[in-house]
């Protein structure tokens, strides 16, 4: 896709620099706490008390405080679970799928969407746990060596769900955290308070922006995207199997997995926009989250909304095409039964209103887009209500038909999760860079590269080239780490690296505030072994998963489940898949930690004057004293000849 196809700029105005974007984004988190913010947090905190109160009430009295009954055994809890987990799909979709598709406009919103994913998945994860009749026995869902010898029943979609959701939560968190590490370093380096420096520094693990770190980081990041893409699709597919795996008319449908995934992305983007639009206004981030982002999000909602509509049409068509009287009844009952307003509400909100997104003016107007998103948020809740409750309330035996209504405690819990979610988002905004700074730097880099690289860089240096010598000269040589040169542009750094390399130096390190492919080439870094590690991890995870399930079901504790064979291998696939992803991700993350020697909270190079700008807008080249060719004067002369801003002799 050529750049020209996107006429609108990704960052406005064009005059932004590495430094200015950094300051702007970090600034959001470091703004002083004012009374308005405290009031808002207080309000959300009290709202989140609804969650805690209703959970306490639920645990004290039992799941009967909710509106669930027979025949509607699943009520709000499952509706809300699917709703939240759907919302939790946008982040990974934006981060992973758009990354793989090289949709670099995603860079301004991915961090935010990923955080939202985590919070939404956290909210979602509450519900399946809380809806258990015996919450205290939730661990029966996990394979652990029980004294009874029993294992989970691997054919149940609910067990698949446990693995899918926990894998998704884990991998999403890894992915989010890995992406956050360079920015945490930026926060560390620009922190004004000791404590924020300490905390950010701890979580930054010793990130220095060194070229090898960047190379591994970028490799892992892309691989994580590669893992997360099938994962995000699998999660909602598996959630949909909670229904499609049942025999209930209205559930038992093969269209469910793709239809659920599309619905999830649809709902997820609506929620991202719902949160992002006010944030963009409040924190004056129109420069970073531009109208083009709104436009693109609107388009994605339009497309996924059409998928969802197609799903509805298919369901109705196949109900009648099947000729099955129960399916037909359920379909007609959705339309004209006692819950008709749920069905038509879903149609209005998910199919009709999003058609407005054909109009560009509506897409790029934050207000109208926000309104459309609210319809989608509500509509997708209706859709889940329709699937879960309206299918159950009138199934095969008319004698057992019944009605369902959420109780006060159902509503309190649901509203409580919304408050808690917004509270978490708000805290995230306060505490962490809500936009991926290094990726914005990349955007700037790409936008300007080839035209005028210097524009992306900082204002002219305040000090002239100088060698910071005095006290260093007094140091004994074994106390010296090496010589570090500071550069203003990436091009300067890259050419410097080439020159130093050609001069025969081996122990050199190059530091940049963004990943630079040219630097990797200049450093002549070998290809990372991370992919192999992750492949091995994935294979181990998959084989272990499949083997373990087979062993449980055939050797360790075979039981007769509905006359199915003990070795019901198709039912073992979902968990095998999830474990493949999970183990690959675990191996990848472990490899990153091991190779980068994380956490490494002290490194001598940080003694370099001005080095805190290595995570902002400056480029550094270090030649270590341990290098065979290292000679204090000669090396300094070499570095001085590369037109750096400064050259420093850095103590250990």
């Amino acid at each position: 896709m050529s750049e020209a196809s996107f006429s609108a700029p990704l960052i406005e105005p064009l005059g932004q620099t590495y430094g200015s974007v950094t300051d702007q984004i970090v600034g959001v988190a470091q703004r002083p706490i004012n009374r308005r913010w405290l009031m808002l947090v207080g309000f959300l905190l009290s709202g989140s008390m609804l969650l805690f109160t209703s959970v306490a009430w639920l645990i004290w009295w039992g799941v009967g405080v909710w509106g669930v009954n027979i025949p509607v055994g699943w009520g709000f809890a499952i509706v809300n679970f699917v709703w939240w987990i759907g919302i939790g799909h946008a982040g990974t979709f934006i981060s992973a799928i758009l990354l793989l598709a090289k949709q670099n406009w995603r860079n301004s919103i991915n961090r935010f969407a990923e955080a939202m994913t985590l919070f939404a998945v956290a909210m979602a994860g509450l519900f399946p746990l809380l809806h258990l009749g015996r919450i205290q026995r939730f661990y029966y869902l996990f394979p652990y060596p029980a004294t009874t010898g029993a294992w989970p029943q691997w054919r149940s979609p609910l067990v698949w769900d446990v693995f899918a959701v926990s894998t998704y939560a884990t991998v999403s968190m890894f992915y989010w955290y890995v992406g956050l590490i360079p920015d945490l370093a930026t926060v560390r380096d620009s922190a004004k308070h000791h404590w924020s420096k300490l905390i950010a520094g701890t979580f930054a693990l010793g990130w220095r922006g060194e070229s090898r770190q960047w190379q591994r980081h970028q490799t892992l990041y892309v691989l994580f995207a590669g893992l997360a893409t099938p994962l995000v699709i699998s999660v909602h597919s598996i959630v949909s199997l909670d229904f499609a795996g049942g025999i209930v008319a209205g559930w038992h449908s093969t269209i469910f997995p793709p239809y659920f995934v599309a619905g999830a992305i649809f709902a997820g983007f609506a929620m991202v926009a719902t949160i992002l639009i006010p944030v963009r206004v409040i924190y004056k981030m129109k420069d970073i989250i531009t109208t083009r982002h709104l436009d693109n999000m609107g388009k994605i909602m339009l497309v996924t909304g059409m998928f969802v509509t197609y799903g509805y049409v298919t369901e109705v068509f196949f109900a009648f095409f099947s000729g099955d009287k129960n399916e037909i009844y359920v379909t007609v009952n959705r339309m004209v039964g006692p819950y008709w307003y749920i069905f038509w509400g879903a149609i209005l909100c998910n199919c009709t209103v999003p058609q407005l997104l054909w109009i560009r003016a509506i897409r790029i107007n934050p207000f109208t887009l926000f309104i459309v998103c609210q319809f989608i948020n509500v509509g997708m809740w209706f859709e889940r209500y329709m699937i879960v409750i309206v299918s159950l309330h009138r199934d095969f035996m008319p004698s057992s038909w019944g009605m369902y209504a959420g109780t006060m405690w159902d509503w309190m819990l649901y509203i409580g999760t919304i408050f808690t979610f917004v509270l978490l988002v708000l805290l995230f905004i306060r505490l962490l860079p809500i936009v991926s700074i290094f990726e914005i730097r990349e955007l700037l880099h790409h936008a300007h590269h080839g035209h005028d690289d210097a524009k992306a860089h900082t204002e002219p240096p305040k000090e002239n080239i100088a060698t910071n010598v005095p006290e260093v000269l007094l140091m004994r040589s074994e106390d010296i780490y090496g010589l570090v040169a500071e550069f203003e542009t990436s091009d300067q750094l890259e050419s410097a690296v080439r020159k130093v390399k050609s001069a025969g130096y081996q122990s050199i390190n190059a530091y940049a505030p963004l990943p630079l492919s040219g630097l990797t080439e200049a450093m002549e870094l070998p290809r990372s072994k991370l992919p192999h590690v992750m492949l091995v991890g994935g294979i181990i995870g998959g084989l272990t998963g499949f083997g373990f399930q087979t062993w449980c079901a055939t050797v360790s504790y075979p039981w007769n489940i509905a006359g199915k064979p003990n070795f019901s291998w198709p039912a073992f696939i979902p968990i095998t898949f999830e474990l493949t992803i999970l183990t690959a991700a675990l191996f990848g993350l472990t490899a990153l930690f091991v190779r980068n020697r994380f956490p490494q909270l002290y490194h001598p190079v940080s003694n370099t004057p001005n080095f805190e700008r290595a995570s902002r807008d400056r480029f550094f080249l270090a030649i270590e004293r341990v290098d065979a060719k290292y000679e204090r004067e000669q090396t300094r002369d070499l570095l001085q000849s590369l037109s750096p801003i400064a050259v420093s002799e850095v103590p250990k």
Partner: protein
Amino acid sequence: MPHESKPSRPFWRSLDELVGTPQFKDWATAEFTPEALEAPAGTSRREMMKLAAASFVLMTLASCSRAPEQEIVPHVHAPKGRTPQKPQFFATTLTRGREAIGVIVTSQEGRPTKIEGNPKHPASLGATDTFAQAEVLALCDPDRSQSVIRDKSISTWDAFSNEIMHRLSTAGSFASVRLLTGPVISPSMLDQIDRLLKQFQGVQWHVHEPAGETEAAAAHRTIFKQEVQPSYDLSSAKVILSFDCDLFFGIPGSVRYARDFANGRRVRSGAKAESMNRLYVAEPSPTITGSKADHRRIAKPSELPQWIESIAAKLGVAGATDHDTSDAWLNAVAKDLQSNLSHSLVAAGAGLPAESHDWVVRINAALGSTNRTIFYRPISSPAHRDLSSLTADVEAGKVQTLIAFEVNPVYDSPEFAAVLKKIEWKAHVGLYRDETAAACDWHVPMTHALESWGDAIAYDGTASPIQPLIAPLYGGKSPREVLALLLGEPLKSDYDLVAGYWRGKIGAGAFDAWWQASLRDGVMAKPAPESSLGLAALPAKSAPPTTHPVAANLSALQAVFRISSSTYDGRYANNAWLQELPDPITKLTWDNTAWLSPATADRFGLANGDVIQIDSGGVKIEAPAYIVPGQADSTVTLPLGYGRKLAGSLGSGVGFNAYLIRPRLSGALALVTIEKTGRTYPLSTTQEHSKMEGRDLFRTVAIAEFNEPREKKVVSLSLYPDRLKAPQQWGLSIDLTACIGCNACAIACQAENNIPIVGKEEIARGREMSWIRIDRYFEGEAEDPEIHHQPVPCMQCENAPCETVCPVGATQHSEDGLNDMVYNRCIGTRYCSNNCPYKVRRFNFFQYTDIEHESLQIQRNPQVTVRSRGVMEKCTYCVQRIRNAQIEAEIDPTHPSQSVADGVIQTACQQVCPTQAIVFGDIWDPKSRVVGLKSQPHDYALLEELNTRPRTTYLAEVKNPNTSLAKGARS
């Protein structure tokens, strides 16, 4: 720490001591030596220890103050014939009104836990009704009266006996002393009353039976010149015509009638139409009997007397006028009766006037049915009068002393409350401190039938013994003991009284063996029941035929009063099982309602739950309306037995009291007006939807088409090899022709399987717990539908959809084909219930099982896990019974194959079923009964298209319609 120290602050034991009240000082002086009262000043640690030890010993002694009076011996060696943890079974009899039903009670470690019918007893033949099942719960009801009460304060039996003896000895004339009882069917008690009436000349005995057949009794008295108990033999009846007589519910012998009726309809492959009986029912309001009719006709109460007379006329009864010469239905019915002379039967319900009962006697005589299908057994009993004569005597100032036994007229005869106040001294003996007890000066708690000795005469005259299963839980005296007190035999125990009576009857020599046999069998071999009266010469009709005036006022409705399917006449109001048992027709729990036909409800603009005011001659009550398809237009049915004020913690204030507007004469036509109040009342039903929506869940076939070849059954396909290997595979067959919808299976299951009750609110939220429910469908037009009853337990699907979806394997398949539920493993995801197409799974949304009341715990079946909050449960095919039988078979040395013989295992629902509609057995044994049933042409599986391969299958209902009556002729 200093050894010598004086407490710096005075310690006090109670507020009384602190204040220094004289009561405390008195008490303390009486309880302790003065030294002991002093605070232990200057006590060393060693002395403190001594004191502590001494007080500990004293404490132990104090707790032994109630040492048993006699020496007790622990049984180191178990008594002969008793194995711990193995239940024992005792035969006894349960009575209710004139009904006596022989039962066998399961006793687990001395606790009666379950009641089964006694196969040797004619009224039971091994089955029971719902009320008998609920008696184990009634026994341990924590609300039962537990102490003698005098004027609202606790008194003693001795005080009561002293006072009553004093009263009797000082009574000027015994004519002012009255006994008030329910119907007495106990020979020994009748003998006591007889002796009492003789000993105290002038004492009068009044019998009060709110749900009794007073009109029929009056008619029979006129004809037979003595009291008779009519009974039917449905087994030899080919054509049965019922005029609003609910043969299968609530009348003496109804369990047996249901059995005989069903036996006459059990058609099997190749059966001819002639082999099947035919039932015609004309009734204003649907009953379970009406729902089984081949031709049910809706009739207003005002129409029935006329129809009865017309039938009499058509059958040539002298003096009868045919009012409906051109009525096709009556003509066809009369013809059918006529062509089955001496094999037909006409029955009339308690709500009909004496006049109609008179005609019915004559019709049956004309049909040659007397002493073939209907019997009139003479009843010998001391002279007695009814409640209205007692009322009249009180008003006339003739009554000063009243002793009421087991009756509650203050509740069920509303005008009696004022009457009772006028009696100087009144005592009440009963199970509960009910409305009447509260209005009496004395109340004596009564023993439950399972706590006392006794005897009873069944509907057909068979005598049977009552023996206690347990010592009285709450103390209490039996009516026999109270009567013995009056007779001056205060030291005689229950046992002495009953056994003494029978010793006199049988003769001392033969008594012991006879008594042992009677107790063992639950039936007394001697004396033989008195034979039925012949009808050589019927007296001629004397009075001119009367008919009910037809309501002129359009807004006036004819009221129909019915005993309740749950509380009977109100006596079971505090029985939670019965209160929660859905009415067979309305499926309502925990309430009674005013039943209206759809058209009538429409006319008044009423929907279910709308509160209406019912006005009967100025007396007004309020009741929620309920639309009942099959109800006659312009009628309102008002179930009795609700609206109790002092029933107990569960039954008080439930429903409305229809007795308040019931005419004193049960056969009188009651006209009421109704008015909408605009308020609504929440009702709890277990079935909200009554239509089948075109699904073939309940299947019916006419006998004529029964043997026609029909479509082949769906062949169930599977990709997987069959993996069930056990030599015996269990299955169940439910015969819908036989099922009368009586609910006995549901309550038997509740008793057997420790199923909790959930209460009205939880039922309203769709959370009932019944493991076997009886689905009731209305088919056809709402005005005059077919009514179907379909028991639905767990289908025990071979391909059980519930099992696949359980994430923890809490439900899985046993080797012998049961869908097992592992409570301890269940975490309560409820996915299994969602995925159960039959919706037979039940969930403990709250802690439903009452774990607080200790007395309720004695009822629970120790072989069935008591479920806690948050777990799923469902029918297990009574797996505990299966496993017990398998263990028995396995340890039986004489048994070669170690498999359980067919018929040894009966599920609780099967065992209780009055019509034997449920048959359990091994589906791999080609000779088993269940296989015989499942191979019938009308066997079908519910929702078989889902390929769940259910082990429970149904036999379609076979109907035997009269071909000369087209369907349209039903109205």
